[in-house]
């Protein structure tokens, strides 16, 4: 017998079950997974956009708001200026057609390299309860753009700020058949408190997360 059979057999023997899984048990488990019932969760007495902003700020993200997507490059330019950051950035394909040049930003549409300083991404959706961005990996949405650069700028659609992680999963289920290779939930800049429990931003991921909410959708 190999390790797999040994482990499964030990579990069944210890629980005083027959040596082989019976079909009924397997059906019950599959039915439960297929039904994926909701569990209790905290009440949401807030407006999702307001809550998202508050929570994101608590996590040390910064938040800006624009009416329409066209206004995003200028808003990002103001942010980069105020922070004295590089005006060279990499971005996802979705934003390739924006007028970055008019905003004075040199943009490269590609996956991120080690030396990139600013990465501009969208999100799949955002979670109001915790001020979290939900990113799905894919050919047009390379993960490294939100990871390698020191500054991550995320452009998000106000109408895709959902209440909690439950709604975020439901959105993936309804819009995608399966989970993509990587789902990353990002909540603020990377941090560590390993040395003397002193919170320090920018451990291995970005030092800064700046969120631009587009009110009228992307």
């Amino acid at each position, binding site marked *: 017998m190999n390790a797999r059979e040994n482990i499964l057999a030990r579990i069944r023997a210890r629980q005083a079950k027959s040596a082989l899984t019976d079909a009924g048990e397997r059906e019950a488990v599959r039915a439960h997974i297929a039904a994926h019932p909701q569990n209790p969760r905290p009440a949401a007495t807030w407006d999702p956009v307001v809550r998202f902003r508050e929570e994101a700020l608590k996590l040390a993200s910064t938040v800006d708001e624009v009416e329409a997507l066209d206004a995003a490059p200028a808003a990002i330019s103001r942010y980069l200026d105020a922070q004295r950051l590089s005006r060279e950035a990499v971005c996802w394909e979705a934003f390739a057609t924006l007028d970055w040049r008019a905003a004075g930003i040199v943009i490269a549409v590609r996956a991120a390299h080690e030396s990139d300083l600013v990465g501009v991404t969208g999100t799949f959706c955002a979670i109001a309860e915790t001020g979290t961005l939900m990113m799905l*990996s894919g050919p047009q949405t390379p993960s490294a753009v939100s990871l390698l650069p020191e500054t991550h700028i995320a452009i998000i659609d106000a109408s895709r700020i959902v209440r909690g992680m439950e709604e975020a999963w439901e959105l993936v289920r309804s819009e995608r058949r399966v989970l993509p290779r990587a789902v990353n939930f990002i909540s603020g800049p990377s941090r560590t408190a390993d040395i003397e429990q002193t919170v320090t931003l920018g451990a291995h991921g970005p030092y800064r997360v700046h969120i631009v909410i587009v009110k009228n959708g992307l």
Partner: protein
Amino acid sequence: MQVASMHFKSRAREKLVNRNLQNALNKLQGNFVRGRAQRVAEMDNFEAIRDAASAIRDRVLDRLDVYLEEFERNATARGAEVHWAETHEDVNRIVCELARRHGVRKAVKSKSMVTEECALNDALEAAGIEVLETDLGEYILQLAKEPPSHIVAPVVHKTRDEVSDLFEEKHGTPRKTDIAELTREARERLRGHFISADMGISGANFAIAETGSTLIVTNEGNGRMVTTLPRVHVAITGIEKILPTLEDVATLMRLLPSHGTGQSISNYISVTTGVKGEREHDGPEHFHVILFDGGRTSLVGTELQPMLRCIRCGACMNHCPVYQSVGGHAYGWVYPGPMGSVLTPAYVGLEKALDLPNAATMCNQCGVVCPVKIPLPDLMRKLREQQFARKLKPWTERAAFGAWCWTAQRPAIYAAAAAIGARLLALMGGRDRLIHSIPLAGGWTASRDMPAPQGVTFRELYRRQR
């Protein structure tokens, strides 16, 4: 990892007089304990969420074999390769074989307590593979060649000065004392390794049966690096870490960060499923999941099974008066505090960790704060009973319990003995009514006095006043 739990008492004594450690433990208590309390207060139906979490974990454990098979089926369908390991030797062998198969020269790791159980780094190094811990705390420990002392804050026992010295010596750079600068130095050191490593090794906070995914929670972002950049990703997890559905993930994520560090959410939650798609720019080409037993099945179906609900948040140790006094190293293995006092004897053998189930005041702080409602003091009591039944305690102790047991079953003799005892202790109290030392119980009076009793027993008083 080598077991040193038999040295609990002597190690604890050393730790009690270590000023740096005591300062660090005080701070830990402040930050993590206060943070958890705040997060719990923010949830209007916290107890309902906690009940649900505990029920989710029980649901899995009661059908663990079926859930494991479901996980395996869904993970395999997405291109992951699932391996099963009964012992830590199996884990180390599988990882070394994978490294050979994929031509791996360098591996980067994110924090994983399971690989500490296995001492995987030693095995990889022996096989000629360079391995780097990338969690800042674990990286410091790897440089210092020390084991972690807390499951969430592994380097809590070290001061900034010690880290400064260590980096100066090992990196050969000018000494830095600012924590942000030290962090940047580690970041810059490790960046290149993330890019050049062939294999990323992670644990898994959970494995999701519905999707065949593994999930890791990190704050630093090293977990994302390890699962995104190298061409091979190996996730190693205990067989008990399955969650049925994505809804269950949402529930557990309300409890794990809040009980671990007092955060409302950790910075990164990474759910990885299968391998890189054809036109994708990043992600591993090979994804391996190792399901590790390592003693876990020995708890299934026993009175200790509730321990397998554990989500490794660390709240029990943060709230434990014993952990707060002696720190994690005294416990002598991977898992310290109340959860370690149950897991260590269960995984490495009761006879190697005799003191651990007794290293508790039975105050039940741990049971009160555990997000999945593990009755830790009850489980420690059960281990004490097993110690007694298996005759693992010294004969003097067993004889004393035997004598007490014999007397307690004979009310007249018990009453007489109690009456003598009460009078004797009252006499010993002297004028200040304090006992400064008791024969055979010197430990109790070494650092405090015992208030002397009145000289009569409760039953005598009751009879007199009726």
